[in-house]
Structures are given as structure tokens and as C-alpha cells.
């Protein structure tokens, strides 16, 4: 079943020196249970794409269908996770996780139960009472993930969620995300500038060009992917990205 259908989506911003074309006629389908990664050069419009899917911004033209219905406004069914955790600094880890559950109108006992569950998934037992500033960057991102999963989203949107973490923490959290995704059959749309991250996490990788973002290719990733195959695929995608109309400089290689 199709979870998300994006048809001929375009986005044009009003910039200070005239209109800026961020996205040009992008088509994309995400089926239920899929883990799809979008890779592309920094500043290519990936984030804009995610914001449109989240309902935080309207598209200029084209359609975004969520479970067959056009997206209008934001909803907890399409939860967004940011590069920096975007936790509420005045709430504890527990309070942050319960935030969305309160919006859903759940009674206190059920909120507490679901928060406990979410804390457990991410190995955050014992951190429930701490404020974000008392947590490390990796722990903060775990809380953000727990907060998002607690509202039981249909589609989890992730905008470079590992980019601000150190290599070791990133690696661990990536594995965790993959484990949770498989266990819950969680539909995920991940945006990243790291080709390797996309290949090692997703079932399908969508490669975007630099601005305006256009789909360059869609690759189903076979599992398991051997290290040699991974390196080969990575190389192929990099080549695809640098070949495009002569702007290889905009590509930032992943920091693995």
C-alpha cells in the first residue's frame, strides 16, 4: 500500500533577487513499511521537500498524497525529526516525550505508560527526569526519536538526524534506528547528504541533483549489502552526482 505519493512537486521561493527554484518536478512513492533515503548535495532542497511532506510548507505546484489524501497542514501522523534535537528545553526528557501525547488528548496514566515504553526502546531508562541541557548530543537525539515514536506516526520524517553527532555516536544511533524501524515496520523518509548513510540504512535510495532538486535516480538497495558492494554503489552514486551539469563542487563527501 502506498503511504506517500509525490507527483510533479515543484517549489519556488520569493528570494531577495527574484524567485529561487528549490524543487523541480519531483516524483516519489513511499510504500508502507519502506525505509527510503533521499540523498543530494547540501542546500539542494531536500529539507524543503521534507517540510512540504510534513505539511509545514505548501508546494508551489504538484501534489503530495498521504495515504491517498492530499496533505493539508501538519499532523502527528507525519512527525519530523531535525538535525539538532529541537527538544523543548523547559521540559524533562519525560515531559518532551509526553508533549505530543498531550496534544492527542491521552489521559495522564496512558501518557506515562507510553513515555515509559518509548524511553525503553531507546535505552533511556534513568534519564527520564533530566533536562535536555543535561544530556549529551546523542542522548538528546535519542529523546527526540523517542518523542517522535511515542505519538505512533505513520510516516517518520528525518532531516539529517545524525549529522551533528560524532562518528561513534552516529554509528550506534543509526543501528538503533534501523533496528527500531525493522521491529515496528515503521515507514521512514530520511534526508541525508551522506551517500553511505543512505545506503547502509535504507531499502531505497533516491538521488537528487543540486538546486533545483530533480530526481537523478532511484535505487533499490539489496540486503545484505557487502562492504565491497557498498563501496561500489557509493562510488556510482558519487559519480552520478558529480557528473551533473558541471557543479561538482557543491557535493560534500560524507565524513565517515
Amino acid at each position, binding site marked *: 500500500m502506498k503511504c506517500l505519493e509525490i507527483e510533479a512537486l515543484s517549489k519556488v521561493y520569493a528570494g531577495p533577487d527574484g524567485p529561487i527554484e528549490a524543487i523541480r518536478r519531483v516524483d516519489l512513492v513511499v510504500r508502507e513499511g519502506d525505509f527510503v533515503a533521499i540523498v543530494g548535495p547540501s542546500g539542494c532542497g531536500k529539507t524543503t521537500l521534507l517540510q512540504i511532506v510534513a505539511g509545514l510548507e505548501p508546494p508551489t505546484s504538484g501534489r503530495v498524497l498521504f495515504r491517498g489524501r492530499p496533505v493539508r497542514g501538519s*499532523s502527528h501522523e507525519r512527525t519530523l525529526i531535525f538535525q539538532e534535537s529541537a527538544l*523543548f528545553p523547559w521540559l524533562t526528557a519525560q515531559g518532551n516525550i509526553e508533549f505530543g501525547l498531550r496534544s492527542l488528548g491521552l489521559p495522564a496514566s496512558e501518557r506515562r505508560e507510553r513515555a515509559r515504553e518509548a524511553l525503553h526502546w531507546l535505552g533511556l531508562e534513568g534519564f527520564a527526569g533530566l533536562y535536555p541541557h543535561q544530556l549529551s548530543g546523542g542522548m538528546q537525539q535519542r529523546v527526540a526519536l523517542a518523542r517522535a515514536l511515542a505519538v505512533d506516526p505513520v510516516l517518520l520524517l528525518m532531516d539529517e538526524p545524525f549529522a551533528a553527532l560524532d562518528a561513534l555516536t552516529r554509528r550506534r544511533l543509526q543501528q538503533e534506528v534501523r533496528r527500531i524501524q525493522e521491529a515496528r515496520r515503521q515507514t521512514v523518509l530520511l534526508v541525508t547528504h551522506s551517500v553511505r548513510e543512505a545506503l547502509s540504512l535504507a531499502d531505497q535510495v533516491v538521488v537528487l541533483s543540486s538546486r533545483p532538486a530533480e530526481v537523478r535516480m532511484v535505487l533499490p538497495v539489496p540486503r545484505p549489502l557487502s562492504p565491497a558492494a557498498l563501496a561500489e554503489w557509493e562510488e556510482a552514486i558519487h559519480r552520478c552526482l558529480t557528473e551533473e551539469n558541471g557543479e561538482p563542487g557543491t557535493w560534500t563527501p560524507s565524513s565517515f
Partner: protein
Amino acid sequence: MRLRLARWRGGVLLAGLLVCWESLPRLGWVDPILLPPFSRVAGRLISLALSGDLVQHAVASLGRVLAGYGLALAAALPLGFFLGLSEPAEQYARLAVQLLRPLSPPAWIPLAILWFGIGNAPAIFIIFVGTFLTLLTGTIAAVRGVDRRLVQAARTLGCSRRGTVVRVVLPAALPELLTLIRLGLGLAWMCVMAAEMVAVSRGLGFLMLEARNLFRTDTVLAGMLTVGSLGLLLDGLLRLVQGRLLRWQVGRKAYEMSRD
């Protein structure tokens, strides 16, 4: 140990100033009519307090501050939220606000007297106009300064647009708002003094002006000490509220520094 020492340091300078104040007129280096020694001013302060005059004047001043500043808060905070959240509305208001803001509170005094005569009303009016625009522009800036991603995160967690104002924008802007409210109270306290020098027949400002006319420098200084202490007390109360409401911030800076 070091912390305790730091706490006493503030007292050292104050004690030094008091010693100078006491000794300069006593040694005859300064005319005691222009600067009576501290002990005489303190004596005058006690006698004013005992006679009940001081309390009466202080209550009059405080009442005006509470009324004028309370009105300004009640008007500026909601309006500031509205303008801070709505870009077009803020654009309508911007020019008018910028035009009126440079008018210092005393500049309103002649108009206040023409409109309200003598009494509480002009003083309250002056406090209101003297603090309203500062509060308004400060609130707009505080609301504008809220991290957009926090609002976006709340929206995609199912929070309604109205819900985010109360559950995200308000707590996120609160640290800045509380600082603003403290600042505004100081401003209101200054305004009431200016207003009482011209438009009323009671209050600490009036007490000092009258004492000047009678050449009672000790009363003038006693009034000034009261004004300063009350200002300090009011700010202390607000600081207490601030600490209570922002308890989550305790040690935040230290943590952020110790990380990475």
C-alpha cells in the same frame, strides 16, 4: 568559601561610601547643609518612618506604579504576542511604534497634566506611556526570537496552532519576557518619580520636592534612600519569581560549557 567572599565584596564598597558620606561633612570638607552626614539622614528616615508619613508617601508611589505598570503589562504583553506572531500586523504597527518610542516619559508630563489635571491619573498615565512601548517592542522581539524549529516540532507532534502559542512560544519566550518585566518595573519606578515632582500632592517624589523647597537636604536624601531601597526590593521580588519559573535553567550555562 570563594563564593562567600564574593558576596561580601559588594558590601565593602558600600561601607566605604557610607564612611566617606559620614566623615566628609563632619570634617567640614563639605557643607553639611548641602550634604548632611549619613547618621543625620538615617535619623530623619527613622523619624519619618515612625510618624507614618514615609509609609503614606511610599504607599502612594507604589500604588501608582502598580496601577500604571499593571495596565501597561496587561496591554503590552497580549498585543506583543499578537504582533510577534503575525508579520503583516507588525508591519502595520511598526512605523507608529518607532515614531512614539523615542518620546521619553517626562516628555508626556505636560500633556498628562492638560488631560488629567493633578492627582493619580496623570501619574498613572505617565507610567503607562513610559513603559508600554518598551514592553511592546520587547515582547515582539522575544516572540520573534523563539526557535522556529520548536514550533515546527510541536506542530508535527499534533499540537494545534493555538496550542503552540501557549505550550511552546510562551515558555520559550519566558526567560526574555521576565527580564523585560524586571527592566520595565525599573523604568516604571523612574517614571513615578518624574510624575510626582509635578503632578501630585503625595508620594515619595512629592516628599523630596517639598523638602527641597524647605531646604531640608536630610529629607531629600532620606527620600532618595527609600526610593532606592524600594526599587531594590521590588526587583528582588521579581527575581524570586524569575528563579521559580525558570528553575529548569539552573546550571544550564555551566552544562553547556562543560560539554564538548
